[in-house]
């Protein structure tokens, strides 16, 4: 079942086209890689879909419903969650309290219910000692906390924006397994932005490739990586 679909999604910033006529869809249970060179518009694309910025043209549909101009917090309530490249834990809140936020506001849970829900999510991700101050977390734990925060929204669509950046090989493996696990168990549609191609290869069922704001290819990773246009985009004017 198609969870999310965009049609000709376009946004201009001060005359510059950051995302240009991107049409794509994401299905239930699918892990989709979103790749492309730096500055290709991947994060802008996620911002458009999650409602942080509004498009200049085009359409966003969630489960068949038009949400193109819906406010970000309402999309969160419908079931679209995301993580951020730069993670800022909420100061003076503990690990579990950080995770609770999504459950409280996106799901409208009481504090008590949100705490229960958050501890379930944390347990699932292997986070322990939940009352810790966030300044004492390891990088991997911070990344997991960011994912737990998004999962506490109880989303159906989840975007992960470079969650693997800064992790070493073992930590990356750990996090890949974790993401695969939660995606399968919840039948999530997951969109993953990553730079490390190894991660994309391991993690995703399908990728879309953006270059200069345009979608230039999509399909399984192995197939896309042989696409001459993609090779050209990554390698520059060599071809």
């Amino acid at each position: 079942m198609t969870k999310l679909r965009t049609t000709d999604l376009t946004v201009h910033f001060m005359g510059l086209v950051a995302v240009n006529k991107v049409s794509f869809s994401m299905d239930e249970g699918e892990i989709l890689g979103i790749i492309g060179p730096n500055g290709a518009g991947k994060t802008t694309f996620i911002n458009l879909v999650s409602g942080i910025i509004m498009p200049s043209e085009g359409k966003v549909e969630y489960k068949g419903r038009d949400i193109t101009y819906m406010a970000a917090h309402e999309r969160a309530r419908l079931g679209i969650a995301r993580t951020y490249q730069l993670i800022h834990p909420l100061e003076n809140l503990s690990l579990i309290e950080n995770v609770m936020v999504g459950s409280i506001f996106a799901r409208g849970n009481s504090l008590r219910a949100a705490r229960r829900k958050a501890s379930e999510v944390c347990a699932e991700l292997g986070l322990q000692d939940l009352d810790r101050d966030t300044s004492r977390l390891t990088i991997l734990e911070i990344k997991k906390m960011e994912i737990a925060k998004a999962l506490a929204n109880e989303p159906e669509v989840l975007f992960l924006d470079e969650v693997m950046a800064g992790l070493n090989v073992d930590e990356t493996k750990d996090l890949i397994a974790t993401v695969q696990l939660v995606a399968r168990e919840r039948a999530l549609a997951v969109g993953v932005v990553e730079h490390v191609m190894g991660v994309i290869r391991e993690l995703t069922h399908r990728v879309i490739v953006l270059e200069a704001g345009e979608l230039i290819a999509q399909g399984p990773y192995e197939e896309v990586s042989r696409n001459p246009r993609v090779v050209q985009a990554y390698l520059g004017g060599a071809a």
Partner: protein
Amino acid sequence: MNRNLARILAALAGAVMVTLPALAGAYPLQVARNIMLYMALAVTWDMLLRSGQISFGIAGLFGLGAYASILAVLRAGMPALLSIPFAALLSGVVALIIGFLILRLRAMYFSIVTLALAEIFRIVIQNLVDFTGGPEGVIMKGRIFGGSDSGIYWLTLCGLFVALGASYWFEKSKIHFALTAIRNNEVSARTSGVDIFRWLLLAFVVTSTIQGFLGGIYVQSYGFATPDSVFSADFTLLPLAMALLGGIHSTVGPILGAVLLGLASEYLKLQIPYGHLVVYGIIIIIVILFMPQGLLGLFRKATRGGKGRAS
């Protein structure tokens, strides 16, 4: 902070407050009233600050409440005691209306606009001479409770409890999560489902209502109002300095700051009639430069054995 120690201190403070009217004379009672009033204002200022929005307009809503209360009594014959909640209501409604306009502003633009609004309230009231008495202000025939010191003391204490109660509610409910999330990062708050405008409006209206309520209490305690007295910059300045000194983003911080600065300023007022407020300026500067977390921050750092977070 040690929980038991906090409880003991709170109980002790409560006992002192309750027994004070029976033990102390008129002057100490008045000092206590002043401190309680500023403490309540400091707490309400901090409550909004927890969302990251800094108001320079406390005096505006306070003065509005004061005039609402005294004019309700003088012009509409409202009972003095009833005029105080009326003042709160009016300030709340005004805050609701202006909130829709100004809560889209951030950082210094919000601050400057709140300051400008406070000035506008003052100028409007000053110029509606027939209704408000103009620059000379208005005087009531007598003060509330026939001017009984202890009566007025209890009234002020009531105002303080309202402010502290609201602050406690802010700390222990969803509001705490909403405001903290907004203060930290509005973008990620939005994608966590936080309707930023709604929570800011709630915080702004609640704190403004309490500020109006306190204005009503103040004006009924003194029995008169002039634009210069109830819109005095002191009502913005002193609470701000108290909260900063004690430690922001908490209830305890402003309380601590209010007690220290309140007592200090009473003392200084007796020593130096002009310009004792210079102390407030110095405290603000020192706190901002050297202890941005206030006394509470220093205390936390000390109890954590220096392991507390830096900056």
